[in-house]
């Protein structure tokens, strides 16, 4: 019976191209992450896949990708793209937030800046003196203190500023203010003022009821600016169970040193553990 040679009826995959192998038409090889089919038979080592008269490229290699697993390596890392490709942003630290860098072309971790920032909150602990040290700095020009004070007995409201060593300043307080009061049967008011006092005492003998607090708002201007006096004002009110008192007072501490903190103290009773004082910094620009 006669035999008819039809040749190959399908391609044959020959694996990776080898210069020591002869190839025939329809052999398929891989080389350089690409795939070629032989279109003309040739001897071993005579025609590389770059010879287009012998090889036809079936599949071209794509652009190399980035191995994400080798780019971000640590728990908390973030992947982002810069001008050339994927990049790793190492994790930030506790409390930081993700924001854009100054050039606005890449993310970075940083502290969120605000014009009104709580610096510290202190709780009372049954002491007669409560110091808030090192809470003023060059970061803010003005400060606001919000306090809910509960005292164990009728007490004076006394405030002193502290210098950069957190040593209380006990002279140079010039202040004037008013108190208005109202009870079920009487009302009235008086003034409280002093010239070069050892403390700022907006009011005397005020007391808070068991269920209530003395609400204190103090504004302090430029305590940390050297060669300038510190100006303060207080807005205070309380109810002792029989009399409601409202106090406003303004004080100038005529001491041009940098002030870093302040002291609340009472000369009778104590500042109970249900009291709290928060200091906020306010930026001017």
């Amino acid at each position, binding site marked *: 019976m006669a035999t008819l040679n039809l040749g190959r009826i399908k391609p044959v995959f020959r694996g990776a191209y080898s210069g020591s192998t002869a190839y025939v038409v329809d052999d398929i090889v891989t080389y350089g992450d690409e795939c070629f089919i032989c279109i003309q038979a040739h001897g071993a080592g005579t025609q590389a896949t770059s010879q287009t008269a012998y090889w036809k490229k079936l599949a071209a290699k794509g652009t190399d990708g980035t191995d994400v697993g080798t780019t971000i390596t640590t728990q908390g890392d973030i992947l982002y793209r810069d001008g050339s490709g994927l990049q790793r942003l190492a994790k930030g630290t506790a409390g930081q937030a993700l924001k854009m860098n100054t050039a606005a072309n890449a993310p970075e971790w940083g502290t969120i800046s605000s014009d009104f920032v709580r610096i510290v909150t202190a*709780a009372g602990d049954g002491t007669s*003196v409560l110091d808030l040290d090192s809470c003023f700095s060059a970061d803010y020009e003005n400060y606001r203190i919000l306090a809910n004070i509960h005292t164990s007995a009728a007490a004076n409201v006394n405030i002193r500023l502290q210098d950069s060593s957190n040593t209380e300043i006990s002279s140079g307080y010039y202040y004037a203010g008013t108190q208005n009061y109202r009870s079920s049967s009487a009302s009235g008011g008086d003034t409280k003022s002093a010239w070069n006092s050892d403390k700022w005492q907006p009011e005397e003998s005020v007391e808070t009821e068991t269920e209530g607090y003395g609400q204190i708002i103090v504004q302090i201007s430029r305590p940390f600016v050297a060669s300038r006096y510190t100006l303060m004002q207080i807005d205070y009110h309380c109810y002792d169970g029989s009399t409601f008192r409202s106090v406003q007072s303004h004080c100038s501490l005529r001491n041009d040193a940098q002030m870093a903190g302040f002291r609340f103290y009472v000369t009778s009773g104590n500042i109970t553990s249900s009291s709290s004082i928060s200091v906020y910094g306010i930026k001017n620009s």
Partner: protein
Amino acid sequence: MTKIRKVSPDNPEGITRDMTPEEQASYDRDVANAQARATEQAEAKAQKEDLKASAKAKLIAGEPLTQDEADTIVI
């Protein structure tokens, strides 16, 4: 010994401790000054009330007032 509490941004939990002898001496002076001032103000207030009462009585009786008495009713 009087207690003092110190809190800062670096130590928001704060510490409560006894005052040092120097702090205690300073605080004791503050307490003494506060008490003296309170006594002084109470006495001044009582004296002013007395002067007002005296001034009122003299006005009703048509008698001349002292300078201190006049000061209590002239703004």
